[in-house]
């Protein structure tokens, strides 16, 4: 179970509201991840968009192990941010993957160091579990803020309808209803 610094979850909710505000959206509105990327000045690509990428690399990432990776983001020397995502995933998973990478950027996380041998046969990276947990939490708060969950549940919108409305997976809706306490909160109100 991930543990966060005190106040991180509340900060994530506020950030979600503030970003929507900047984009002219209400706190409960659906947030399109491509629009968020544009707002953050991040160029979003798939492996097919990278010129000259060898066929064996595309083959590994798209066919041999299409579900073995999610997304990568990197900063170019001129400061431009690139985000490369796996287009083979479902729309809900793609949104989650892209939001996760954008969350790293919003949080100004230190990127992993990737060590590559010159012949390309070897690649290894550093891994920071705390940063990954924070990026997940912020990403999911951006996609499904408490305001959106409360509104959906009050209106009697089903899990699948909510997922469809916000472009996420039904699993994420169920997870967020549970971890944000919205399910319990609304159940208590209904009992009164």
């Amino acid at each position, binding site marked *: 179970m991930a543990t966060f610094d005190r106040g991180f979850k509340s900060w994530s909710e506020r950030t979600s509201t503030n970003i929507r505000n900047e984009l002219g959206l209400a706190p409960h509105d659906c947030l399109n991840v491509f629009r968020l990327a544009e707002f953050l000045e991040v160029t979003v690509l798939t*492996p097919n968009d990278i010129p000259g990428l060898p066929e064996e*690399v595309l083959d590994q990432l798209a066919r041999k*192990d299409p579900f073995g990776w999610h997304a990568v983001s990197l900063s170019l020397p001129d400061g431009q941010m690139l985000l490369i995502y796996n287009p083979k995933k479902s729309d809900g998973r793609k949104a989650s993957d892209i939001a996760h990478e954008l969350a790293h950027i919003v949080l100004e996380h230190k990127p992993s*160091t990737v060590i*590559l041998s*010159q012949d390309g046969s070897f690649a290894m*990276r550093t891994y920071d579990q705390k940063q990954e947990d924070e990026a997940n939490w912020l990403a999911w708060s951006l996609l499904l803020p408490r305001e959106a969950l409360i509104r959906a549940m009050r209106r009697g919108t089903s899990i699948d309808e909510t997922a469809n409305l916000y472009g996420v997976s039904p699993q994420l809706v169920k997870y967020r209803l549970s971890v944000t306490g919205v399910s319990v909160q609304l159940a208590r109100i209904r009992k009164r």
Partner: protein
Amino acid sequence: MARRALSSLSKMVNTRRGDKKLRETAQEIGISPATLMRIEGGRIPDVATFGKVCHWLGIEPGEFLGFDVKTPSATDCTSVSAHFKGDSTPDPDTASALGKMILFALKMQPHSKTVLDNGDI
């Protein structure tokens, strides 16, 4: 320096562990049993875990990288910075393909320069 294949890591770990329990061995190395199980299954560990496993095996990490860690050359390895969403112990071929993809992505810019840094190993 002769280079060991990274694919030999899982076998080396498994041989060294012998009949010892997974949990006990993981504790000895300083990693989780799940991570040890993934390494024995041929997955690539992250850099910190790799360092711990090499220390436990009594070998220099540079033996896998093909250079002497004490006197590394800037041309032996390239280090770039990126965020990843994915398994902490990816499939070796996928890890390599992602590495190559990053190098090609960096080349998309006319004046891109890769930072050479062997200090993290």
